[in-house]
């Protein structure tokens, strides 16, 4: 399926932020904005909600901690109890380092794997980049064109009047 997009190219982040506000105020839905680095304040103007990845990190960490404690208590306390250095079988203070390390490990990996999944990042040879300059020094605002609904020339004017240095059209095969 082919989708058609109008791309507004910007070269200043403040102009871009203002343009996003104006374009949205004009009732146009923005498909996506691409930038070479994270722009502060773009989440608010685009209406992006705060990521819930920290919650994922917390629960993965909680899992890691519980697993580590269970593992050590079960192995040394129940499965094969042994007296080591005259300490109790379940010597909790001595279990803290491993518990801490596994908490961090599970938290970090759980969060990062979730990030890859939700952001749809995976190793692949084919990448759909709308405009290659968006990983270098330009900001690209992509607006989807719906056949028969979107007035391209009006969109072109809207983007240009809001500081776009170029307006291009691009077809993307999904």
């Amino acid at each position, binding site marked *: 399926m082919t989708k058609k997009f109008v791309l507004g190219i910007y*070269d*200043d*982040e*403040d*102009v871009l932020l203002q343009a996003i506000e104006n374009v949205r105020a004009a009732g146009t839905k923005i498909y*996506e*904005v*691409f*930038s*070479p*680095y*994270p*722009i*502060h304040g*773009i*989440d608010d103007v*685009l209406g992006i909600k*705060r*990521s819930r*990845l*920290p919650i994922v*990190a917390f629960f993965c960490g909680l899992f890691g901690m519980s697993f580590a404690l269970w*593992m*050590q208590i079960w*192995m*040394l306390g129940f499965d*094969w109890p*042994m007296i*080591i*250095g005259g300490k109790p079988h379940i010597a909790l203070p*001595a*279990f803290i*380092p*491993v518990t*801490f*390390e*596994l908490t*961090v*490990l599970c*938290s*970090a*990996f759980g*969060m*990062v794997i979730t*990030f890859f999944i*939700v*952001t749809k*990042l*995976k*190793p*692949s*040879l*084919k*990448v759909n*980049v709308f405009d*290659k300059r*968006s*990983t*270098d*020094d330009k900001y690209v605002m992509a607006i989807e064109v719906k056949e028969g609904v979107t007035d391209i020339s009006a969109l072109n004017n809207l983007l240009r009047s809001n500081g776009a240095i170029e307006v291009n059209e691009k077809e993307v095969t999904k």
Partner: protein
Amino acid sequence: MQHVSPIREPLVTGGKTYHDVTEDVCRQVEAKPNARWAAALAVALVGLAIFIYSTYRTLWYGIGEWGLNKTVGWAWDITNFVWWVGIGHAGTLISAILLLFRQKWRTSINRAAEAMTIFAVICAAMFPVLHMGRPWLAYWVLPLPNTFGSLWVNFNSPLLWDVFAISTYFSVSLVFWYIGLIPDFATIRDRATGPIARRAYAVLSMGWTGSAKAWSRHETISLILAGLCTPLVLSVHTIVSMDFATSVIPGWHTTIFPPYFVAGAIFSGFAMVLTLMIITRKVFKLEDYITLEHVESMNKVIILTGSIVGVAYITEFFIAWYSGVEYEQYAFINRATGPYWWAYWSMMTCNVITPQLFWFRSIRRSLTATFIISIFVNIGMWFERFVIIVTSLHRDFLPSSWAMFSPTIIDIGVYVGTIGLFFTLFLLFAKFFPVINMFEVKSILKSSSEVKHHPNGAMHGTNKDSHTNTHP
């Protein structure tokens, strides 16, 4: 989003635009390898060959190839292990702790420093694995079901804590580093002309497009990873120090070890970062990104941590006397005046005295002086571990078992070899990966660079937003 004082020096000099940043960083990735890089790699490969040969001897003939004896059962191997792990700590400090403290000067050095962490931990891991004598059974350190006829691992042992600490540290650092690399790989991918480069960087960049939603998540996880790495890095050297501190050897059995080891680790790590960065900025012409301001900031960290280490040495000596324990007192007198006095005083000179020269601004800002002092610190910190390990062991409780340690050629070979391994990895990184974090440098460019001209005329060095937003 920070307040930048107008009197603060810019972090990026030379009036760079966003495109200049891309060009300057991608240049060495895209260009053919230059002669200096090839020559350096050749030297590093010789080191790697020494490592392979020494490892082969150690594995084939056993640990008897090393100079260890019944009294001194830990020597160069553990010294080198602690030295390398310590070096790794600076990278995490720069990438995680300074991120939490919002120190923007970290942006241009964090990539290379984090790479250094990963390579240093790889080098460090070689030593305990080789010291096992039978490294093919290294998986026995993992808590595996006892179908081998053995018991579960001993979770009360600091050596086992080390297994968990080092492997977690390595894998989390690797992930943190890679997350930061993804957007920069995408930049290289979109510029690549050759088919191999385009494919390789396409795979490495995981299909990154730089959409606003992805950036939002990327920033969130970077912050959380920094928050996780901060206690992690502190725990790693704490646990390394517990390998010693939880034993009952005089000179090791002290509660000061964890903070003292962590400070020492950061101290030695910054010295190694400086050694590497001073060369890298010169070879790859990155003087506009790694400026004297950066060197000076790192030198300030060196004075702080070097002074903490100095205070720790003196405290240890004082407490040995104050404890009234004669073995403890003997261990320390023996360190300073016994047969290894030269190692002790090398440590004192290199770690306590030389870094104090950084109180002078002209020395902090001199590249030659910084480079020389950083080498001194590297040497001093190696001696610190040698002193702690060998002097505490070589005269144990029974004078009949007193002994000296002298390294064999294989001991030296494994150590020199890991330096070769380290530089081989670092040089390959410097050639094929972006050595400076492009997207982070771009994100500070507007607030902290010497911008002379801009198409919209909107920014001049410190611009309006950097003043209006004083809260992070």
